[in-house]
């Protein structure tokens, strides 16, 4: 091959980035297996094993209902569904963000030890979180049915939110994972911020019209992400504003994440 031909074949940064995402995805056998093993490792040698995920979720949801239902005007039934559905969504969102910030840092040994597409670590992490939340989902639906305030078709409709969440989770993890490698303070900032956001998001409170909380809820993009999953269960429809916020947020995130990924992917190992 002569010099000119080789130059032509030299892949652009964009091509390398897309190839990374695609070839990482194709290794689904690997990242599903590793994600599952991670999860099993977290609950190793326990009697209940992965059942702990459901037990833990159910307990927390019930305690939240018990404590906070008194502070809300709505019926306990409605509020229970509100909390359970919102808390489940939040569990996925917050885990995606906090572990996304750590996704490449935690994989340092792997990144420096074997050449795999960087996206593999993101897929593995999201798979693990998703699996965890699928277990919680079973408990959540059981609780919702038990409390009795739900729209039966809406429950099916709410499942549409799952692929939508995943489509957002990939660029979020890619972006935060990269940024946190270059600035470790950001990781701490995110961990702190996500705890605050829990209170600024309508999970344990319901926004009454014309209150400060209603304003907070209106301007908080997380409200809309929660709504994607929760509103169908309550009302039987997916709200249009939630779909729009999801669409434009996700599109923007993909754009920014891809740009950062193509620009700094090759530097990742140097900075770890």
């Amino acid at each position: 091959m002569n010099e000119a031909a080789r130059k032509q074949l030299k892949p652009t940064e964009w091509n390398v980035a897309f190839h990374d995402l695609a070839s990482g995805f194709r290794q689904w056998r690997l990242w599903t297996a590793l994600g599952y093993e991670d999860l099993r490792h977290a609950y190793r040698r326990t009697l209940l094993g992965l059942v702990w995920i459901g037990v833990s979720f159910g307990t927390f949801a019930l305690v939240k209902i018990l404590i906070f239902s008194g502070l809300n005007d709505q019926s306990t039934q409605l509020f229970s569904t509100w909390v359970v559905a919102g808390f489940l969504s939040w569990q996925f969102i917050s885990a995606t963000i906090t572990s996304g910030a750590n996704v490449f840092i935690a994989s340092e040994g792997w990144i420096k030890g074997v050449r795999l597409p960087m996206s593999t670590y993101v897929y593995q992490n999201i798979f693990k979180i998703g699996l965890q939340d699928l277990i919680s989902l079973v408990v959540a639906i059981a609780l919702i049915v038990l409390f009795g305030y739900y729209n039966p078709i809406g429950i099916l409709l709410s499942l549409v939110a799952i692929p939508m969440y995943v489509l957002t989770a990939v660029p979020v993890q890619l972006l935060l994972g990269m940024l946190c490698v270059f600035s470790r303070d950001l990781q701490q900032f995110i961990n702190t911020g996500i705890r605050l956001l829990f209170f600024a998001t309508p999970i344990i409170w319901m926004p009454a019209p014309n209150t400060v909380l209603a304003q907070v809820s209106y301007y908080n993009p997380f409200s809309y992400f929660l709504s994607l999953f929760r509103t169908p269960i309550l009302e039987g429809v997916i709200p249009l504003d939630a779909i729009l916020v999801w669409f434009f947020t996700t599109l923007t995130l993909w754009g920014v994440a891809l740009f950062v990924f193509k620009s700094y992917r090759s530097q990742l190992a140097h900075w770890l």
Partner: protein
Amino acid sequence: MALLVANQLRVDFPVLRRGLGAVRHKRQPVDRKFVVDSHGKRAVRALDGVSFRLEAGDRLGLVGPNGAGKSTLLLTLAGILEPTAGSIESSGRIEALFNPRLGFKPEATGRRNIYLRGLVRGWDKRQIEAAMDDIIDFSELGDFIDMPLRSYSQGMAARLAFAASTAFAPDILLMDEWIGAGDKSFQAKAADRMNDFISSTGIVVIASHNENLLRGLCNKALRLENGQFVGYGDINEILEAK
């Protein structure tokens, strides 16, 4: 046909501020020149001016004191670190044998760990199945293969790692120090296997402080000092010319 060509390789590591915004940085050496890279940022030049050409049958030994850049060079050849300048040309499947135990999952059985290891190395299901019996047999684990890895002794885990890592010879093999495992009797067996493995590999690049080992193994050598390329050529010449 296996081929591995390095052309004026250079690798810089970023140097980060201390204090606010500082990042844990293990690679910061004390005796190396700091340089300013093209973006005006300070960097450590971990490797510079490395060129060589290896064809099928070549075995290259990397020599130099600790911190010379041997591991950095291996990481770069493996495609894990991107060179800051210069280029690598290669043909053939490259495999890095840096950490044979990387990716072992303690809760999974030995058998499943072999499967996972195969996936990490990009094998398909069929290839993994094909190698499975040989790996189990060689690791001498017997019925333990269906027990979780955490129930293994250190030696058993090391044997499994060794057997799984050396199941299929790649076209180009990169090694940071010689690997071996187990007790006296297994070590001899491992050494035989390693020699077979290496002789069926097209190109080998190995970093080691053991000059006798390198003399027995390699036909070429490359000397690095403080990240600088010092010399490259026939193994005996390079090892004599200190």
